[in-house]
């Protein structure tokens, strides 16, 4: 096993290919030499500048970090282009025929991008410590931002790979290039600033609950929940990794169970992490995550082929380990597996809800924390309307598209209705409406679409917050049962041919 893993990394064909191409490519060599020269020049200029003690260090450091960010961006963009080219040349097929596993392909790609990045990184880091010698810098800050870079980069690389594999550009077209340039304009300053300032700064001074908690992942100050943070980081990387694998997987051999499992475990770890760190104040962050994750997972993976492909079934049959079998059962590819995963999400939401109730929050917090419970209901709502029509039972793409369109359109419609009902003209005492319309609009928004439910839930206090939790608990359960019914119905349609 260990040997295989090592072999997968060091004797990886994809890595060999990418690195060979990279080494034979002259422009890259030029880039390196340029980078080194730049580092040297910056250091030399900073040395010669007559400045106050302690100001040159940060300037040089910021500049070097920005250079590193730029270099990282170039590496990622080249990785992206290279991956797109694999699609336009249809070479991925050849790797499939070679019997290369999806994991090996993606691992090779990621490692080759990382190798290229680390090469540049080790070119720059010495100069960074040189900037430290100029004064005005905290040694910890340098260490931390270096660590931050090394930790953030794989995430960005995986993300860009994931996009490249999903978008499958046949040709890097003009709009794609424009998009890439725009992304560069937005991204480079962002990354440069973040990296220059260091995650240290962000963790302590800003970014709100989200940004702060995301970046506090890299701050070494708080070690209580370090294990959880590392677990979250690793799981998130794995999640992106399997998302990449799944997007190039042939239908017989999907990586859907890994994706589902990791979506669930990332959510659970995130809730646990939030629970450990700063519970009542941070609870909304955990709840958003649960709600969004289960809605998206369900919308994309529930309207799907019903049974797991034969290959996956056989693989399950062959394993002797009970845990592996359970894993295969609970997160199986296909809509039945998704249903089981959604059930687990539902249980997790119940636990979260109970935990929030325990901590005795305000009624509004109570109302918002019950939201994820309702996700299965929303997932059930639009397909059930289509079930009477035979064509929809087998067209999973249609079901998927309808679900998302329904959520968006009905959500926006209800929001408009709701804001009219809430407008001052409408609420004038003499206008003949005594709140019934408002209550109905609010109720409809809460019940019919996750979009409106989300927005209305945060701004409106309907006066029935206390009963909202139990309502959502029940509607979620109804949703799960309804989804089971839909899956059965679709299966019957599939059997009939």
């Amino acid at each position: 096993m260990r040997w295989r893993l090592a072999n997968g990394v060091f004797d990886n064909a994809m890595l060999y290919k990418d690195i060979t191409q990279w080494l034979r490519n002259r422009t890259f060599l030029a880039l390196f030499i340029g980078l080194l020269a730049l580092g040297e020049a910056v250091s030399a200029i900073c040395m010669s500048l007559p400045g106050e003690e302690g100001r040159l260090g940060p300037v040089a450091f910021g500049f070097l970090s920005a250079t590193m960010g730029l270099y990282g961006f170039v590496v990622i963009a080249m990785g992206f282009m290279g991956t797109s080219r694999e699609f336009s040349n249809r070479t991925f097929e050849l790797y499939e025929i070679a019997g290369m596993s999806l994991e090996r392909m993606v691992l090779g790609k990621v490692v080759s991008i990382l190798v290229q990045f680390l090469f540049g990184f080790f070119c720059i880091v010495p100069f960074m410590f040189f900037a430290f010698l100029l004064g005005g810098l905290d040694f910890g800050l340098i260490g931390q931002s270096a660590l931050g870079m090394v930790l953030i980069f794989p995430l960005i690389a995986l993300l860009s790979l994931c996009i490249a594999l999903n978008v499958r550009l046949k040709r890097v077209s003009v709009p794609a290039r424009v998009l890439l340039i725009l992304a560069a304009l937005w991204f480079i300053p962002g990354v440069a600033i973040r990296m220059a300032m260091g995650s240290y700064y962000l963790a302590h001074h800003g970014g709100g609950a989200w940004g702060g908690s995301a970046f506090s992942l890299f701050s070494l100050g708080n070690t209580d929940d370090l294990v959880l943070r590392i677990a979250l980081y690793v799981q998130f990387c794995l999640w992106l990794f399997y998302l990449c694998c799944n997007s190039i997987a042939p239908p017989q051999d999907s990586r859907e169970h890994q994706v589902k499992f990791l979506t669930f475990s990332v959510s659970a770890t995130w809730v646990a992490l939030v629970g450990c760190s700063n519970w009542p104040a941070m609870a909304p962050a955990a709840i958003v995550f649960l709600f969004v994750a289960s809605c998206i997972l369900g919308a994309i993976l529930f309207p799907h082929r019903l049974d797991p492909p034969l290959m996956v079934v056989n693989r399950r049959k062959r394993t002797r380990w009970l845990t592996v079998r359970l894993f295969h059962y609970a997160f199986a590819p296909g809509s039945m597996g998704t249903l089981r995963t959604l059930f687990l999400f539902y249980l997790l939401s119940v636990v979260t809800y109970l935990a929030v109730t325990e901590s005795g929050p305000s009624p509004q917090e109570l109302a918002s924390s019950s939201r994820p419970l309702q996700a299965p209901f929303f997932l059930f709502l639009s397909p059930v309307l289509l079930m009477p029509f035979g064509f929809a039972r087998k067209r999973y793409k249609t079901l998927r598209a309808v679900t998302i369109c329904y959520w968006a359109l009905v959500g926006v419609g209800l929001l408009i209705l709701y804001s009219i009902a809430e407008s001052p003209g409408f609420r004038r005492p003499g206008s003949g409406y005594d709140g019934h319309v408002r209550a109905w609009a609010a109720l409809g928004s809460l019940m019919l679409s996750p979009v409106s439910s989300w927005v209305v839930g945060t701004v409106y206090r309907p006066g029935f917050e206390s009963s909202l939790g139990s309502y959502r608990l029940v509607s979620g359960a109804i949703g799960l049962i309804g989804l089971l019914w839909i899956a059965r119905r679709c299966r019957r349609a599939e059997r009939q041919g």
Partner: protein
Amino acid sequence: MLKVDNLTKIFGKTRAVDDLSFELEEGDVCGFIGPNGAGKTTTMRIIATLEEPTDGQVRVGGESIHEEPYRIRRRIGFMPDHYGTYPDMTCRDYLEFYARAYEIEPKARARRIDGIMDFTGLGDIADKKVEELSKGMRQRLNLSRALINDPKLMVMDEPAAGLDPRARVELRYLIRNLAEQGKTVFVSSHILTELSEICDHMLIIDQGRKISFGSVEEIQRGLREGFEIRVRLVDPSQVEGLVRFLVQRPGIQDVRPGENGVLLFSLRDEAERIPALLREAVNEGFSVMEFRPETPTMEDVFMRITGQTNGGNNGNGA
């Protein structure tokens, strides 16, 4: 070695492959013929486990594509109808890359690559960039790649497309060599003559359906449906009489009188009947000057069969 049962593939509304069944033994060279859009590439991609069939089963060496695609991939060499090229890589790098992809032991790699380059004649251009190769060289590289795992079954999709006559001859030679090494070769083309010399089996399909399958001789015999005979009489006025005479005989069809005492007809019967028929005609007093049975070429037959299926469908549609 390769067993295909009731294979069907439907893309939206097109039935690209329609209930196709055949079987190949070890060492067979089978030509896979069909016009454009017949479903050759689709069938081959299913065999190579790149595409999932809508229905049916394919077994390679006894293992099913549904259950053991990874084992099958390691056993077959697939040469698709497109090449994957990369910038900044030489031929040797390219093969080295695929040798790693097939997880060939590091020690065996160099020897294997050298052997294959010798076989396909790539030795001289080992250090040339892949991008700079000509079409013929690329096709050799493509073949080398497919051979790198020493496959038992070779699936080649139109390997001769775009090659010059000399390169075609060389390709045929290579394919024969592969067969002599005991490999089963399944090779597609839309040109029938190209394959009839090197293949011992033929599978002809059109619009996804099997038209015929068997050894080359069987197919030639089966497809011909008799002979096309051309008769020329010294006295053109006798033609009408000959027509009457022929129509009465069994197995004679499609009698077409022409100009200058020429007459064409088809005989759906064994070759042994031809001399007897001639004798009878002479005994009846017809002044036969020329009596020539013409065997249609495979190409003619192919054109006729595929033309018929197309025509038939158009007729139904109208």
